[in-house]
């Protein structure tokens, strides 16, 4: 397994050098992109959005009305989230996000997607047998709950607004945000 990895590493290095030589990229800008997505843009952003929506009904209404604008209020937005739609889990409906044709994902709120989200297994199966996939994530939904899958294969990026857990009245927004997982905002977990 080491061989192909080494090979692609060399080829990417050569590509970067050629692009720099041609004046098409600045190595420092590459480092800035990596830093942004490795250290700042990730599911913590989405968790803050969710906690705000749980604690501020007016914000929640704005979030469901125009997701992109509402995450902008918290300073998030841009690449792969320009047209964000937030879909709400309810007592009756559980939402699940996938992109079958590639791996579209709401970067500003969730960061870069995990490997499994990009895997053929998830892309192939989430649309046809979402309940079987959810079971593998430990989520066995009752038959009377509707599962709605969002195949975000075009220009909209989706994020799930999970249901606020019971008995969390005593928690503040920051404590609530700490409860929210990335999988909860994809739909492969309830929170």
């Amino acid at each position, binding site marked *: 397994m080491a061989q192909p990895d080494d090979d692609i590493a060399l080829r990417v290095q050569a590509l970067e050098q050629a692009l720099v030589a041609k004046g098409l990229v600045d190595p420092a800008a590459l480092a800035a992109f990596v830093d942004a997505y490795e250290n700042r843009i990730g599911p913590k952003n989405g968790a803050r959005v969710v906690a705000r929506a749980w604690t501020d009904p007016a914000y929640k209404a704005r979030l469901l009305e125009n997701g992109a604008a509402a995450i902008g209020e918290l300073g998030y937005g841009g690449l792969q989230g320009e047209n964000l739609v937030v879909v709400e889990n309810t007592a009756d409906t559980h939402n699940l996000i996938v992109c079958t044709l590639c791996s579209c994902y709401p970067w500003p709120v969730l960061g870069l997607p995990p490997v499994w989200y*990009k895997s053929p297994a998830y892309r192939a199966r989430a649309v*046809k047998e979402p309940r079987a996939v959810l079971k593998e994530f430990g989520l066995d939904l009752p038959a009377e709950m509707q599962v709605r899958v969002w195949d975000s294969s075009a220009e909209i990026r989706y994020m799930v607004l999970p249901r606020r857990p019971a008995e969390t009245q005593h928690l503040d927004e920051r404590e609530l945000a700490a409860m929210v997982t990335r999988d909860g905002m994809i739909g492969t977990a309830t929170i």
Partner: protein
Amino acid sequence: MNGIHDMGGMDGFGAVVPEAGEPVFHAEWEKRMFAIAAAVPFALPFADDHLRREIERIPPVVYLGSSYYELWYHAIMALLAERNAFSPAGPQGANPPLQADAVDAAILAGATTRMAAPHAVARFQPGDAVVTRNINPHDHTRLPRYARGRHGAILRNHGTFSFADSNARGDGPSPQHLYAVRFTAQELWGPDASRRDDLVLDLWDAYLEPAS
């Protein structure tokens, strides 16, 4: 195109297996490849439609045997070749490279594909019954195979967006209305699917016909 990338509904790929620790990147080259794909379009403009078109042209056995950033490598190389980026005369019409201190602002600005389209008519309203066209273009399309010739209903009109099929094949953005269309699981997967579940797919106006 009906490529291996159009895998919605396929069987045989096994279980969905989350990896331990889930690092954002797994190696230095993944970081650089991601950043190259993010940075290059500021110098040599291309749209996600073009990147996807090139990813979809990767032979199936290579596609399935590659990690996601390897696919990006192949696609970026194809786009650079198309623009003669590495020929002695260099690429034509390139912008200066994005500078490091401009990266955060560039990320936040994004690159929306939403476009005004004053002449585009919304042929459908929320609630309308529609049937997807059974098209099988050789070029890029965002109408997956599992949803061709299937009946659904308009859930929402997202507004007007650059049309991926047209843009990817070099015919310009030709913006048109994009709708969230709802399909029952049984319509897509047959009588063994859940009677309760459904699926929403974003589809451009040109993919749809009114259903009687």
